[in-house]
């Protein structure tokens, strides 16, 4: 069947506008997310501001953090990383987290006292500083072509490769220490300031390990934090011959005097304490000084999903209602098994494990920090370094004496919002999916029903009137009180009216004949009376003139005779006109009986041979009791009369052949003659009332074209069909009568 754009498809297309609803919902959720982000931004700025407020004008928090320096010099001004795990003093750096990034490489540039050329310098080292607990850990990996240990008997501690550390303790006392080992192993540290007789005093507070390496040596040292405040310097002195003099010194700063020391920034416990109070905000918080160096930090960005996360988690907990009904339970199962995995594929889930290494923990960079350090609070969105998560950062300046001394940076991921958004979208999608499914189904059913009703109606309308324009049946009146119902009722009314009109037309002939009968009777009786009177007169005349003209026959009035003939013919026409109606009526009242068609046919053909002696009937008597037909034999005979009469009349060679064929449950009679061919498309109309194609066969008998109409009526009464076709050789006309047999 050719696809056509039917009502159903149209309605489906229209209902596809439903699909814009999820789009709008999606847009709405996006909007919502935007506002949530905005809200989060405000919250995070608020958090940053609150924290900054707690630190405004508290100079002592920053004074001892070397933040007062106008500038910091890398390598000289040290930053002590907070170490996450205790360090084993073994001269190995495996337990230093991320050593490569945190260490600083000291080389030619960092020479102290004398400046040797790179060719002369035979030493360089890498140093890292870290804090863990109450200790400052230092790690040196020295590369030296000749490692000279202190001679076993040497008193001097400086005529060999050695390390020098210098601090100013919180009381302002300047101390220098020398680590000078006789062998690889635990270090020997000596204090060389504030000593009597210039004899170095072993410094037990400095502990560590000196390890010999193929390139040189490693030294790992720890110093109690109480030993220094924020000034520190260290230096590696290189001696290249036993008991030789110092040939080169490399260090962070000159350790010889208090003034030349560099600074060290140790994460401030006070600030840390303040910040820790804010660590319950689900944010990752940093406090930096004006040199971008981290003073304190708390929280983990991976867990900092913002304030929304709490709400989200609250909503996440489904109220497990044990007695939820079946539909809900089914829906939830469906949701969990099909929809959730689908959503997880479609929607970007907030990453639970992402990597963010934008900041090294020493120096924080970023526009927002620079802006904050310039005095302008700022927030920004950025992606985490692995592009997995969106991080919201807000920086707020800390003012001391109207100078920016640092900044608070608060960071959160948008994971909370994203989770919230995803949940909203999931709910939205689920409900919209449900609505759309139900809606589409409802639409489809509705459309199907409507189109079915219309199709039924159209079929009924089509069936009501057959190809000849006859009314076959009625259109069922629908009780539905809508437009289609109205249409059905209109159709029904129209078909009824048409049927009535048709009926009126079909009864026209009988009506007409009925109406004409009285005036004809008037004419007829008048004529007859006239004729009788004339006859009487003539009889009198004859009686009186009997003597004069005894042999003269009565002269009839020719006009009277012609008038009587005309009336006679009119009367015949009326009778013919009536015949079809009469047949219909009679068929209506006729009971159907089982009869033998063979008997009827044989008898009839015998009769026709008598009636039409000139015609040759090509027919062999068929066996009786083979064709049992339910109906009325008299009418079948009448049908044959009509058809044979027709065939005889049209035959050119005075030969009519009758053929009987049985196939399945039907018997087919074919009555053929070699008469004129039927005009195109007349074969069906031929059987309609008042249709005649006689032209040259005009004779005295009036023809109203009722014969074949009656034939068709009789065929219909027997549930059979009749048709006339030009035979295959186009040499005549076959009338084919098909009647159902009773087995």
């Amino acid at each position, binding site marked *: 069947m050719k696809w056509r754009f039917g009502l159903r498809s149209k309605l489906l297309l229209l209902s596809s506008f439903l699909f814009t609803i999820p789009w709008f919902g999606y847009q709405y959720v996006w909007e919502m997310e935007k506002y949530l982000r905005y809200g989060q931004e405000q919250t995070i700025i608020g958090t940053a501001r609150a924290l900054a407020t707690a630190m405004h004008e508290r100079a002592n928090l920053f004074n001892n953090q070397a933040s007062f320096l106008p500038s910091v010099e890398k390598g000289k001004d040290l930053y002590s990383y907070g170490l996450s795990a205790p360090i084993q003093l073994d001269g190995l750096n495996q337990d230093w987290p991320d050593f490569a990034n945190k260490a600083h490489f000291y080389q030619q540039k960092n020479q102290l006292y004398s400046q040797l050329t790179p060719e002369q310098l035979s030493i360089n080292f890498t140093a890292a500083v870290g804090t863990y607990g109450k200790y400052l850990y230092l790690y040196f990996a020295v590369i030296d072509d000749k490692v000279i240990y202190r001679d076993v008997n040497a008193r001097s501690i400086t005529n060999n490769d050695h390390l020098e550390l210098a601090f100013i303790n919180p009381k302002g006392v300047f101390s220098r220490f020398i680590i000078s080992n006789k062998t690889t192993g635990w270090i020997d540290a000596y204090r060389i300031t504030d000593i009597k007789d210039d004899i170095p005093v072993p410094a037990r507070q400095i502990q560590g390990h000196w390890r010999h390496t193929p390139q040189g040596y490693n030294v790992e040292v720890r110093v109690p934090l109480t030993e220094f405040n924020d000034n520190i310097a260290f230096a590696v002195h290189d001696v290249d011959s036993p008991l030789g003099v110092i040939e080169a010194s490399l260090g962070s700063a000159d350790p010889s005097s208090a003034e030349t020391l560099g600074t060290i920034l140790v994460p401030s416990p006070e600030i840390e304490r303040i910040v820790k109070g804010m660590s319950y905000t689900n944010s990752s918080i940093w406090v930096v000084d004006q040199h971008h160096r981290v003073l304190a930090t708390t929280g983990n960005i991976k867990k900092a999903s913002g304030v929304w996360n709490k709400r989200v988690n609250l909503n996440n907990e489904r109220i497990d209602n044990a007695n939820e009904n079946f539909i809900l339970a089914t829906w939830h199962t469906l949701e969990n098994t099909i929809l959730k995995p689908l959503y997880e594929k479609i929607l970007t889930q907030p990453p639970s494990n992402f990597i963010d290494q934008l900041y090294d923990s020493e120096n924080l960079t970023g526009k927002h920090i620079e802006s904050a350090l310039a005095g302008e609070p700022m927030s920004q969105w950025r992606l985490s370094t692995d592009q997995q998560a969106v991080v919201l950062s807000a920086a707020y300046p800390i003012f001391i004496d109207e100078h920016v001394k640092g900044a608070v940076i608060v960071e959160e991921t948008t994971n909370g919002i994203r989770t919230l958004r995803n949940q909203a979208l999931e709910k939205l999608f689920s409900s919209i999916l449900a609505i759309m499914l139900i809606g589409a189904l409802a639409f489809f059913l509705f459309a199907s029903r409507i189109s079915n009703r219309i199709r039924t109606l159209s079929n009924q309308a089509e069936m009501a009137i057959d190809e000849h324009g006859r009314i076959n049946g009625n259109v069922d009146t629908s009780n539905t009180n809508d437009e289609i119902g109205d249409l059905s009722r209109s159709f029904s009314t129209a078909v009824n009216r048409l049927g009535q009109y048709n009926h009126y037309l079909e009864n026209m002939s009988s009506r007409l004949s009925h109406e004409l009968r009285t005036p004809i009777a*008037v004419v007829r009786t008048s004529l007859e009376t006239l004729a009788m009177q004339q006859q009487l007169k003539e009889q009198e005349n004859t009686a009186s003139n009997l003597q004069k003209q005894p042999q003269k026959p009565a002269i009839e009035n020719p006009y009277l005779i012609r008038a009587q003939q005309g009336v006679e013919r009119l009367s015949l026409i009326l009778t013919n006109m009536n015949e079809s109606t009469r047949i219909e009526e009679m068929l209506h009242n006729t009971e159907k009986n089982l009869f033998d068609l063979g008997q009827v046919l044989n008898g009839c053909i015998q009769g026709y041979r008598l009636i039409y002696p000139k015609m040759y009937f090509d027919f062999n008597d068929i066996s009786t009791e083979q064709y049992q037909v339910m109906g009325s034999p008299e009418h079948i005979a009448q049908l044959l009369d009509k058809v044979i009469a027709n065939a005889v009349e049209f035959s050119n060679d005075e030969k009519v052949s009758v053929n009987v064929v049985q196939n399945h449950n039907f018997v087919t009679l074919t009555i053929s003659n070699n008469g004129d061919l039927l005009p195109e498309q007349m074969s069906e109309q031929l059987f309609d009332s008042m249709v005649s194609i006689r032209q040259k066969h005009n004779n005295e008998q009036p023809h109203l074209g009722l014969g074949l109409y009656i034939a068709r009526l009789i065929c219909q009464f027997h549930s059979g069909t009749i048709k006339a076709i030009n035979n295959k050789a186009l040499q005549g006309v076959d009338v084919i009568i098909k009647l159902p047999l009773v087995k």
Partner: protein
Amino acid sequence: MSKRIAIVEDDAAIRENYADVLRLQGYQVQTYANKNSAMEAFNLRLPNLAILDIGLEHEYDAGFELCQWLRSKSTTLPVIFLTARDSDVDTVSGLRIGADDYLTKDISLPHLSARIAALFRRQDALGKPQQADHMLTIGPLTVDSQRMTIQWQSQHVELTITEFWMLYALAKHPGHVKNRSQLMQDSKIYVDDSTITSHIKRIRKKFTYIDSDFNCIETVYGMGYRWNQNQVETAGS
């Protein structure tokens, strides 16, 4: 004493034509245009024969009512319907109500007067003793052509004039096939073929009402009908 005939007919031309012709033949004719005037007159005195039209003026079935009313007054009064209505339903109901004949208006005047004469003859003959030469007996069938009565197995079969003529035509020559036009001629009516068929059927029905095994009227398909006495005998034996 000449017979009195009443014509109830609303069409003046026809009524007068009929009346004139019948008067010419020596009958006393009274004409009425509607049911009420006819009833008034009939209340005073019944005619010897009534010719009724069915539709009278505004009343569609006045003729039927009149016929019923007349039948209630007299069971023997011959009543003829002479009408333009020729449908089977009308014919059957007219005859059922008690009319002796049902004629359509295209009947010719001589034919009508013959019918009237026949009816009077039957009425007269009923009162007279039976004469054997008018009797035709074929098996259980006895036809009295004088009285125009039929007896089957000594039981009276009520037939109308038309039916009587048809049966008489068949029975007069048993075994001969009478085609429809012959039957029409013999029964002196001119109708179409299907009317003949329905008349035959009605006759058969009237016989089978008395004798359920009746099958003497045989249809010879395509030709006509014949009275077949042998068949009933073989069927009976």
